């Protein structure tokens, strides 16, 4: 049994139902947050990630046999051996300094601080669901944010308190490997990987099951048909997701340029950048040029010294591949008659070190071929409008019928 200590627990009776509300330090004005209010008012599915976090504290953990949620004021040293003080991270904005110069550590009530320090209570940074919405496009900005956040933990007097970041990943891919000026052991920050998204999916299935009985077209009820009816499989596989990531971009390029036409006859969801969707090629290219070109050049200059060896893996980790691609796209537009070999050289010229690697040459060739074949892959087999109309919870922009129409899923996860 793990005891989750929060700042307050309130019991609200609404329509003869008793609802437990959990209060735990979140960002300023958290009581005005829509997601939070939705939970408090019991108006349904929380609308924000913070809402998801708090709902888990309120509903899931509170009734679990493995967790006990209680006010920190009721902390009992004898019975609460395995306990954490919970800070619900609602968005990555919670990791940065607020406008008044304070951090989330400063939001912890004075009395709670006394408990945490006196009993050396570990701290749980509760961030179990995915969101990258608040990330800066600059990895160095994100790194700096993370470093300041953890160093402010020590300044707030929690140096000795073991702190566990409970999230989907160790943040490495999103934030890079942050450089801490002091000894990271002093900060005592650990991480645990969340699997709670499986429980979220269970909830969704349970919810859909109710709908399923009312709607014969529900998707998983007729799996027998899906598995035995050949006409149900119009396409080969289903892959990618909207947001650009290194792996998605690479896979997309590989499928797109392959001579055997791997791009065709599969369901490949559209890619979009962080800032805008690919809808109009001409305006997009203009936007790309404006927004990305000089950013890329600066980035490459900054990172020139970071490449320790000439493996593409390292390269992909340390650079934003999409930006490189975008830069090349820009340069091509300036030289309409350019040939593949020229393009390869152009890409390789961005860093002389790339020339040492056959794998990098392969990447460069793929880039060049992709560009010459017609630009960044942006076509989709299903229209953007179709995607928008099929948002279903965790299957955000992912049409559930696509599972029926394909043989398997190709998941491009995390990076």
């Amino acid at each position: 049994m793990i005891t989750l200590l929060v700042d307050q627990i309130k019991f609200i009776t609404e329509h003869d139902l008793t609802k437990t509300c959990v209060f735990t330090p979140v960002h300023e004005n958290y009581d005005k947050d829509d997601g939070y209010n939705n939970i408090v008012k019991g108006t349904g599915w929380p609308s924000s990630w913070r809402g998801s976090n708090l709902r888990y504290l309120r509903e899931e953990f509170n009734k679990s046999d493995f967790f006990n949620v209680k006010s920190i004021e009721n902390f009992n040293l004898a019975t609460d051996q395995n306990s954490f003080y919970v800070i619900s991270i609602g968005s990555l904005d919670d990791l940065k300094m607020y406008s008044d110069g304070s951090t989330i550590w400063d939001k912890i009530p004075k009395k709670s601080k006394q408990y945490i320090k006196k009993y050396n209570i570990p701290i749980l940074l509760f961030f179990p669901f995915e969101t990258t919405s608040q990330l800066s496009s600059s990895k160095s900005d994100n790194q700096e944010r993370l470093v300041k956040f953890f160093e402010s933990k020590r300044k707030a007097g929690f140096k000795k308190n073991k702190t566990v970041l409970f999230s989907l990943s160790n943040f490495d891919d999103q934030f890079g490997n942050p450089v801490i000026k002091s000894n990271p052991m002093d900060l005592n920050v650990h991480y645990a990987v969340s699997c709670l998204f499986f429980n979220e999916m269970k909830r969704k299935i349970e919810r859909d099951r109710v709908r399923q009985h009312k709607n014969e077209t529900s998707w998983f009820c007729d799996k027998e048909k899906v598995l035995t009816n050949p006409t149900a499989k119009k396409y080969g596989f289903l892959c990618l997701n909207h947001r650009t990531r290194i792996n998605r971009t690479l896979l997309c390029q590989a499928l797109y340029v392959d001579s055997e036409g791997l791009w065709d006859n599969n369901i490949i969801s559209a890619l979009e950048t962080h800032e805008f969707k690919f809808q109009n090629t001409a305006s997009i290219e203009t936007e790309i040029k404006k927004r990305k070109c000089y950013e890329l050049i600066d980035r490459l200059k900054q990172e020139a010294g970071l490449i320790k060896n000439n493996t593409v893996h390292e390269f992909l980790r340390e650079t934003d591949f999409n930006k490189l691609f975008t830069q090349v796209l820009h340069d091509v537009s300036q030289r309409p008659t350019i040939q593949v070999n020229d393009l390869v050289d152009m890409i390789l010229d961005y860093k002389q070190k790339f020339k040492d690697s056959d794998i990098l040459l392969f990447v460069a060739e793929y880039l060049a071929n992709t560009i010459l074949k017609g630009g960044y892959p942006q076509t989709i087999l299903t229209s953007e409008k179709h995607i928008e109309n099929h948002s279903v919870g965790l299957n955000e922009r992912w049409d559930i019928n696509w599972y029926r129409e394909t043989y398997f899923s190709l998941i491009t996860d995390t990076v």
Partner: protein
Amino acid sequence: MRGSELTEKVAKPIANFHPFVVFGSSGATKKIENLGFKTFNRALLNLPDDYEKGITSTVERLMHLIRGIKRFRKLSREDKTKLLKSLEPAIEYNYNHLINTDWLKVAHDELIRNDLPFLPLNIRANSK
């Protein structure tokens, strides 16, 4: 320490009775198996066992994947359907495992571990 992260995208095909292959961080498939799910790398695309092993680079994995997709693509519709049918027990197992597992307990067990890894942080050369 790096490279074995998962997101909720893994849950999508499992919940939708779909076999899947992950092109993600090194070790992602192993992580899924450690959580008790069946995976389909070899059955679907005949990917080698070391597809995600250790230092296998992203591009190397991509090449394995492309080769596997090409092999799959050459199968007749009948063979593809037959293959899918043969995977049905594993697909159904995954769905039931998703539904019947208390993932809060999994979270509990993870959090209570005494050897939780430190968050990867570099130390500056001139650190104290």
